[in-house]
Every structure is written in C-alpha cells, then in structure tokens.
C-alpha cells in the first residue's frame, strides 16, 4: 500500500487531498492507497472573508466550515498537528505522540502574521489577519471620527492585494459614514511604487490621485511609537497617524523553523516540481514555500492541482506529469462595488483591466463558491 500524508488542512492541503482522492478513487477503495491529512484545527476558515469582517460586511461565523465535511470519502483526517518532521526516514511525529510514516508527503502548513516583529505594531496597529484582529479593526473603523489614517506594509506578507483593497474599502466606508472630509489617508509601500505588480501600481496611483489618497513609497515600517503616534521607517522617514492600519510581516509556522526545514518557516522548494529541495518524495505548496510568488490562495490552488496530477501519476505509473508554471490569479477590490483581477505566471506579466461592478460581484460570489472550490468541484 502507498501512503500519502498531507500536513495542513487549509486551502492547499484540502484541494490537494480531494484532487488525489478523486484521481485515486479505485486504489483508495481497494486499499492500495491511503491518504491521511493531519491538521491543527477541526475547522476550515475562508481567510479572505476576514477583510469583510473588518468592515462589518461579514460575521466571523460565516467563514467557517467543519474540515471533515469538506473532504472526499476515504480521506483519513486527524486534528493532530505535526511536531517533528523526519524527512530522511519518511516519518513525522505529532503533538499527541503518534508517528506517521509515508511514501509521499505534502506540506501545506501556511503562514502566520507577526505584528510583534515590528516593535509597537501589535499594541498600536490594526490588521485583518486573524479573526480577533479583524473584529478589533471593525470596532476601530466604526468608531473612528476622523484624522490621519496611515497604512503600513511589512515584508513578506500573504495576499499582496490586501494593502490596496483595505485602503480603497476604507475610503468608501468613511464616505458612506459621511466623514470622508475629516479623514486624510497616507498609504505607504515597501518598494518604489504603489504595488509590486507594475501595472496595478500605475492604476492605483491614478485612482489614489483621483480620490485624494496620499502615498509614500520605499517605506518599510521599523517601529511604532504609540506615545507620539508615529511610525518610523527603515529608510529614515516618519509617519503620523490617528488610526494605524497594518499589513503585518509574516513568517511560516514555528514547527517548520524549529525542525530546520527553512529559515523563517519558508521551505526551500523547487519552483517547477514543488519538491522540498533534496527530497524526491516530499512536496510543499501554498504559503509555506520559499518561492518568489504571491502568498495567495490561488497560488496554493494551482500548485495543488499540479501536485494532485503528479503524485497520482507517480503512484500509478512511477512518473510525474507536468511542471508548475508559477500561475497566480488575484481579484482586487477597488472600492465597495468595483473590482478587477490580475493573472500571471513565471513568464507572463499581468495586465489588469479597469475595475467593473461585474468583477466585484464575481468576487463576492467566489466568497461562497470557495466551498465548492476546496472540495475540488470548481
């Protein structure tokens, strides 16, 4: 019997497990293949929904489903986080003290926001990367009566669209509350333009000029001084705020780092085969790779599809099918009722079109379609 172990029951792990279960249905039913998933929670959260929670447009309980209900029959699922990885012995050990061995392993443990990595940010900034933080941001936005809103972005971070989206959404939110004339926005970004995608940056610049949103580039937050309400940057400049909105820097999971699988929890990954470097039967997908591409759900999704095909072919025929080409697709909310999207891979840059209401409604629809997507039905 071939044993496939999937570590992490988030977006990447779930799509991969379901994809494999369908491709290997006959082998699973005959007992020739076993697919086991180990995760840290019995719940699956639709993380992009947290952005809407911060504006009171979604409630946290809408964002969760039972993880077991999302999995194809025959996938063995345990809430038992992996504590140590022994890739040389094809084995992992879990928090409950069990060991699991495997023929193939896929690691999709995701990433975590680390506001505490910038002194003062945890205490004085708001963000949307956990349920608790998104609820606090909602409270702060709904009670804000005007002043300077500063937006700062740490590196690296997951979902590269959040800095722009949250700024556009705040603009419309304060407009709806009738206090826009009492709010001044200062958007900052770590590199020399408003977004890492050149065309998205150009488009955002025009929109910001039109909406009266100020911006500063080459701004990497170094520390926050809560007494003087200022953010100091690595580059030596200072930003005043009354309300500080942050996209915190991220790390991979502590287990990845403590097992010395990768600095800061990012696992060195082959960009085409998605192998853990140096291990033929170990794969990585989603946020936890060290690949130079967006840490986004769509990245995890496309990687999971490639790995599903490859691992299934390897089990059945001893060889893989195709390479991952770096594909990413991202929706971009451009306010409360308009959105656009960007699609790109390792060789083709994106060319985003002007935002429309249709794309916005498609993104909202996707927020529901997501549950079909992780089940592998889309």
């Amino acid at each position, binding site marked *: 019997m071939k044993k496939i172990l999937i570590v992490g029951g988030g977006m990447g792990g779930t799509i991969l497990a379901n994809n494999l279960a369908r491709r290997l249905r006959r082998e699973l039913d005959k007992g020739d293949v076993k697919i086991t998933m180990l995760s840290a929670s019995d719940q699956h959260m639709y993380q992009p929904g947290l952005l809407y929670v911060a504006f009171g447009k979604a409630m946290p309980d809408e964002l969760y489903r039972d993880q077991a209900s999302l999995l194809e029959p025959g996938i063995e699922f345990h809430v038992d986080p992996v504590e140590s990885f022994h890739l040389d012995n094809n084995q992992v050990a879990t928090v409950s003290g069990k060991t699991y061995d495997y023929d193939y392993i896929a690691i999709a443990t995701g990433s975590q926001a680390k506001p505490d990595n910038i002194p003062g940010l945890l205490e004085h900034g708001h963000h949307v990367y956990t349920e608790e933080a998104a609820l606090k941001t909602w409270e702060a936005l709904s009670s804000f009566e005007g002043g300077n809103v500063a937006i700062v972005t740490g*590196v*690296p971070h997951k979902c*590269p669209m959040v800095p722009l989206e949250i700024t556009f959404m705040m603009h419309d939110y304060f407009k709806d509350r009738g206090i826009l004339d009492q709010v001044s926005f200062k958007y900052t970004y*770590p*590199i*020399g333009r408003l*977004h*890492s*995608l*050149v065309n998205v940056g150009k488009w955002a610049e025009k929109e910001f000029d039109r909406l009266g949103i100020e911006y500063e580039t*080459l701004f*990497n937050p170094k520390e926050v001084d809560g007494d003087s309400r200022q953010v100091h940057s*690595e*580059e*030596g400049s200072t930003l005043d705020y009354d309300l500080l909105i942050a996209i915190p*820097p991220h790390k991979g999971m502590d287990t990845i780092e403590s097992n010395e699988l990768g*600095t*800061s929890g990012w696992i060195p990954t082959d*960009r085409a085969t998605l192998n853990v470097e140096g291990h033929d039967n170990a794969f990585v997908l989603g946020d936890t790779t060290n690949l*130079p*591409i*967006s840490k986004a759900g769509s990245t995890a999704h496309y990687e999971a599809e490639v790995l599903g095909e490859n691992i299934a072919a390897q089990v059945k025929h001893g060889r893989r099918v195709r390479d991952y080409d*770096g594909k*990413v697709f991202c929706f971009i909310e451009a306010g409360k009722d308009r959105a656009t999207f*960007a699609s*790109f*891979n*390792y*060789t083709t*840059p*994106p060319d985003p079109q002007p935002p429309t209401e249709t794309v916005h409604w498609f993104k909202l629809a996707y927020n529901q379609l997501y549950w079909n997507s992780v089940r592998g039905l889309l």
Partner: protein
Amino acid sequence: MSETKIVDARGSFCPGPLMELIAAMKEVEVGDEVEVLSTDEGSANDVPEWLEKVGHEMVDNFQEEGVYHIRARKAK
C-alpha cells in the same frame, strides 16, 4: 565568516525582486551578503535605490544571460 544568501527571484512579478530582497535582509546578520537573481529590468534600478536609501552596501551588480545579479551587504 560572513555568508552569501542567494535569493532566486527570477520570474517574480509579485512580490518581485526588491520585496524578496527586503525579506531576505531581515533574515541575515550584519556583514552577511545577499545576492538577488532577477529577470526583471525594473529591479536593476529599484534595488540599488533602496539599498542606498536604507544604507546597505551594494557589492556587485551585473547582467549575465538575461539574469540580473545584484549583491548587497547588510550594513546595519
């Protein structure tokens, strides 16, 4: 001994070579070097501009077979 960390940002449109370099700089010690590989023309300008603004030292900057190699030493 100082070490050189290689950041392979070829084919990276998002987050892109400079963002990858900024992240890598946080992971190394003062005195260590980071070499970014990039296929993006923009980063040949972006990266040196950022290094100068923050005060890190640029050690090398050349193009070979369509790939830019920019090597920097962490100064603080």
